């Protein structure tokens, strides 16, 4: 079995294009039968909370909330950086379906066991 592909996402509603693009790519991977994980850090952790992606839409890209639902329905997973959720007051009760709070060790383990990582600057 191939290792999941990690897609890095660091932006939320303050930059709709940068918030959406990692999910576009990750959803393509999921549709192509690949295991895909979007790793949300910094303000992107809001995207894994209930209602956190509502009303985020970049020109030429699909509305993010629907895209995330489709990604999760396709088997995709969302990891929320625990060091980023904590100072924002985001706990497990706020996390949406398909998302979970993880720390750096989980990400490091994925990378050292072969997961490729895709970043969008």
């Amino acid at each position, binding site marked *: 079995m191939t290792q999941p592909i990690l897609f890095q996402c660091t932006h939320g509603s303050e930059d709709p294009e940068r918030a959406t693009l990692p999910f576009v790519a990750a959803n393509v991977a999921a549709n192509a039968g690949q295991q895909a994980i979007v790793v949300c850090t910094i303000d992107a952790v809001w995207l894994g909370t209930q209602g956190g992606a509502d009303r985020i839409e970049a020109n030429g890209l699909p509305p993010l909330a629907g895209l995330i639902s489709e990604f999760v329905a396709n088997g995709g997973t969302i990891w929320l*950086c*625990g*060091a*980023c*959720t*904590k*100072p924002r007051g985001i*706990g*497990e009760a706020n996390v949406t379906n398909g998302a*979970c*709070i*993880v*720390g*750096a*060790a*989980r990400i*490091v*383990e994925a990378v*050292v066991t072969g997961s490729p990582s895709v970043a969008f600057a």
Partner: protein
Amino acid sequence: MSVDESARVHEFDAGDLGCGNGLAAEVRRQLALVGVGDQLRIATRDPVGREDLPALARLLGHRVLSLEDDGGTTTITLERMR
């Protein structure tokens, strides 16, 4: 850290330490204090612990014996392997 000498099980309450404030470093330090073959039972109230501590243990070459979650506290038991 408390120790049950008969079972060689060591207890460590990590409190609300998380990824951003030293959970991994402290767990590694606690593992270094127990003997090879001993167990370290860690309680954590940070949600990161459930995903991160098993990963950390595997990265360090130790064994995850159990993981319990009561909804507020995660308790994970590790065996020091080396």
